[in-house]
């Protein structure tokens, strides 16, 4: 296993974790742009643009793009988050060059107006689909409430209104600003021929013009609050709760992840025994998510409407207890076993490593091997868990409920 990196003259970076034992190659272009880089007048443009990249280039129609990926037998897709947009493919090693070329080509799209209009309908259908699936609405709303005006409070999809009103020229402007080579990394994992990777990147991306594309990172100042969104035809009530946690750049993020596993893993956690095993809720979990300049703990609860307030009080009581008394050594050891196993299982495929290597590099300019991650988890002590709970209390939170209830009274 070897980590290699190279920077093209225009600023585009090429990084790879090369594993000669792997059967396949995973690679992707990681673009440092997402919802946090948008403004109100282009809300949803990052995600819409991600769709448009598959609609053709000066050299390829949309059908050509899809057909050529399928000719390689590639497992390919793209996704957009608050802070990055990633285009990736897992292929057999013999297709490394061809997939670098194809993915690179679509990163310089035509953005033809007729394709834009057709694809807008697809995006609007995607939003309608989510609108029919609670807790959609609550997740967007709780982020906006918690982060206030901070860019991390923005919605990735945008709204029906913002997407419908978006003109193609606004997308072009956003594309020019954000898809500059200095803002993009070509990342690979698995069986990788690194020299060939650099050469292919040079051929495909070497003539892209550099442009400054800064992203200001401000530490988020979160708020707290409680809202209830009535949705009469939902069967279940859903609650989403956000609390501050360590950010991407904070070393105590490992302690946060271990703590969240103890308190709110899907199985065997404190929330599980109190709420799921007892049948009081359909699901109840706590997870830690990190971004540049902010981190989050997200509590997710779904249950029948009537016991919602009781369940939220039970969650709060569990959080109070863990803040007051910490966790036990047995819980700590068990959480480490679970995480250890998940890290190893999740790293077996080059695809799994791609997102890890790419995320670490684009967020922190850091390479971390599987062993580095396992060591970091192993090093977490009871005192670290106590410290992270003291610094980021779970009980200071923002909550949004969505479901049949018009109001949920906690006191």
């Amino acid at each position, binding site marked *: 296993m070897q980590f290699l990196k190279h920077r093209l003259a225009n600023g585009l970076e090429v990084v790879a974790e090369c594993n000669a*034992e*792997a*059967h*396949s190659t995973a690679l992707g272009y990681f673009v440092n742009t997402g919802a946090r880089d948008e403004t109100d007048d282009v809300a949803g443009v990052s995600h819409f643009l991600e769709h448009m990249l*598959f609609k053709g280039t000066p050299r390829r129609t949309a*059908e050509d793009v*899809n*057909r050529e*990926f*399928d*000719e*390689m*037998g*590639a*497992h390919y897709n793209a996704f957009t988050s608050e802070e990055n947009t990633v285009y990736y493919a*897992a*292929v*057999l090693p013999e297709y490394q060059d061809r997939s670098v070329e194809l993915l690179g080509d679509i990163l310089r799209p035509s953005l033809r107006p007729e394709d834009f209009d*057709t*694809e*807008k*309908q*697809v*995006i*609007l*259908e*995607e939003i*309608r*689909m989510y609108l*029919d*699936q*609670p807790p959609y609405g609550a997740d967007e709303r709780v982020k906006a409430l918690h982060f206030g005006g901070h860019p991390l409070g923005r919605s990735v999809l945008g709204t029906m209104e913002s997407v419908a009103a978006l003109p193609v020229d606004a997308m072009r402007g956003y594309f020019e600003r954000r898809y500059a080579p200095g803002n993009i990394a070509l990342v690979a994992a698995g069986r990788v021929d690194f020299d060939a990777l650099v050469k292919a990147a040079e051929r495909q991306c070497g003539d892209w013009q550099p442009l400054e594309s800064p992203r200001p990172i401000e530490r988020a100042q979160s708020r707290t609050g409680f809202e209830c969104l009535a949705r009469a*035809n*939902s*069967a*279940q009530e859903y609650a989403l709760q956000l609390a501050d946690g360590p950010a991407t750049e904070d070393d105590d993020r490992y302690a946060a992840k271990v703590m969240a596993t103890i308190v709110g893993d899907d*199985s*065997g956690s404190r929330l*599980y*025994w109190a709420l799921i*095993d*007892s*049948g*009081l*809720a*359909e699901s109840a979990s706590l997870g830690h998510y990190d971004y540049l300049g902010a981190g989050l703990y997200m509590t997710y609860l779904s*249950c*029948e409407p009537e016991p919602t307030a009781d369940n939220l009080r039970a969650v709060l009581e569990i959080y109070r207890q863990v803040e007051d008394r910490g966790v036990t050594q047995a819980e700590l*050891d*068990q959480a480490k*076993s*679970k995480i*250890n*196993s*998940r890290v*190893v*299982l999740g790293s*077996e*495929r*080059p695809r799994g490593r791609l997102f890890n290597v790419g995320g670490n590099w684009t967020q922190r300019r850091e390479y971390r091997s599987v062993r580095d991650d396992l060591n970091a988890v192993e090093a977490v002590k009871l005192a670290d868990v106590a410290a992270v709970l003291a610094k980021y209390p779970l009980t200071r939170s923002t909550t949004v409920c969505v479901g049949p209830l018009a109001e949920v009274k906690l006191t």
Partner: protein
Amino acid sequence: MTQALFSHTYGNGLVLVAERIAALESAAFTFLTPGGASDDPDDLAGLAGFTCEMALRGAGDRDSRRFVDDLDNLGVERGESVSDAHTSYSGASLAANLLPALSIYADVLRRPRLPPDELEPARLLMQQELRGVEDEPSQKVMQELRRRHYPHPWGRPSQGDAAGIAGIGLADIQAAHARHYRPNGTILGVAGRFEWERLKDHVAAALGDWSVVESSPPPDGVRGTRREHLPHESNQTQIGIAYDSVPYRHPDYLQAWGAVGVLSGGMSARLFTEVREKRGLCYSVYASYHTLRDRGAIVTYAGTSAERAQETLDVTLAELVKLAEGVRPEELDRLKARIKSALIMQQESSSSRSGTLARDWYHLGRARTLEEVGAMVDGLTAKSISDYLAAHPPGDFTIVTLGPQALEVPLAVS
């Protein structure tokens, strides 16, 4: 790439089928145990699912908490599901923890405590799962489609129904366990890093003296309504379409697989191209192959806004009907490229492979190596698929929609 495929049938009928993938640090297992949703008595729909939920609440020496603690300490990532014919328990962990995990699951199968004080909490959970489906219209429409397309008692959802869940008592669960959890008919698939002789002996010690229970499969009943609209207050209309196909063990299975791949394998496939790419009608549209032991079906899904649902149904049906005209060689070439890379990538993870081995055995009475599947795919031609389609043209559709208003089915489509 050499594969090491092993199998052993124990005296009581239990089958162990395993594939060693030496490059991995993990091992995964899947128990396919008789007792699926098709075995549920009509008035106790959901019994197999309820039994599965209860079996996980303590077994052998372990109470519910110790059961979960021990598996968590072993780092076993686990899951369970109920299909038409089986209850499935599966897990994956670091290779060293495979045998201890299998011992714990042997208790689940043979000695579940089925504790009376856990009955009501388990019932509450089952009821909520049932309600949860109501909030996922795309899942709901496909459940309702399968239920109507297959003859009773096949195609029923594992969640059962409200009356069934309310009426199930502890005695029903004990009886379901006694009747269905048995070695004859149980298949254990294992994939990843292991030593075959040790694994075989370990399974013998844990499950070799499990007693046989005689049983027979449920008889086929009648089919449900073939056209139905389910009113639902929503932005989108959900469309489900099903038509008959051959089962997995049929000699023509691969032709049927190739045909559905042309419809829906990859973004250059016909449904994605015609419905989404050219017309922008949908975000999600697909067709997939589904098999029971004695029959198969192609199930198709599309979800779109109510005012464009009629056009979506018309375009989707037209593509299904047009498939009977045959497929083009370049469409098949793309499918072959996809399956070739998928087969190689299967070697990179143990989890999906253990399930495939067990299901292969259920349908075929043996497991296919990846090389064998590769050779079968090489033998496919556009002509062989087109000939199959000419003999089995998509038609006689079951169509279920869910949304604000009903749709018209074109007269030309039977």
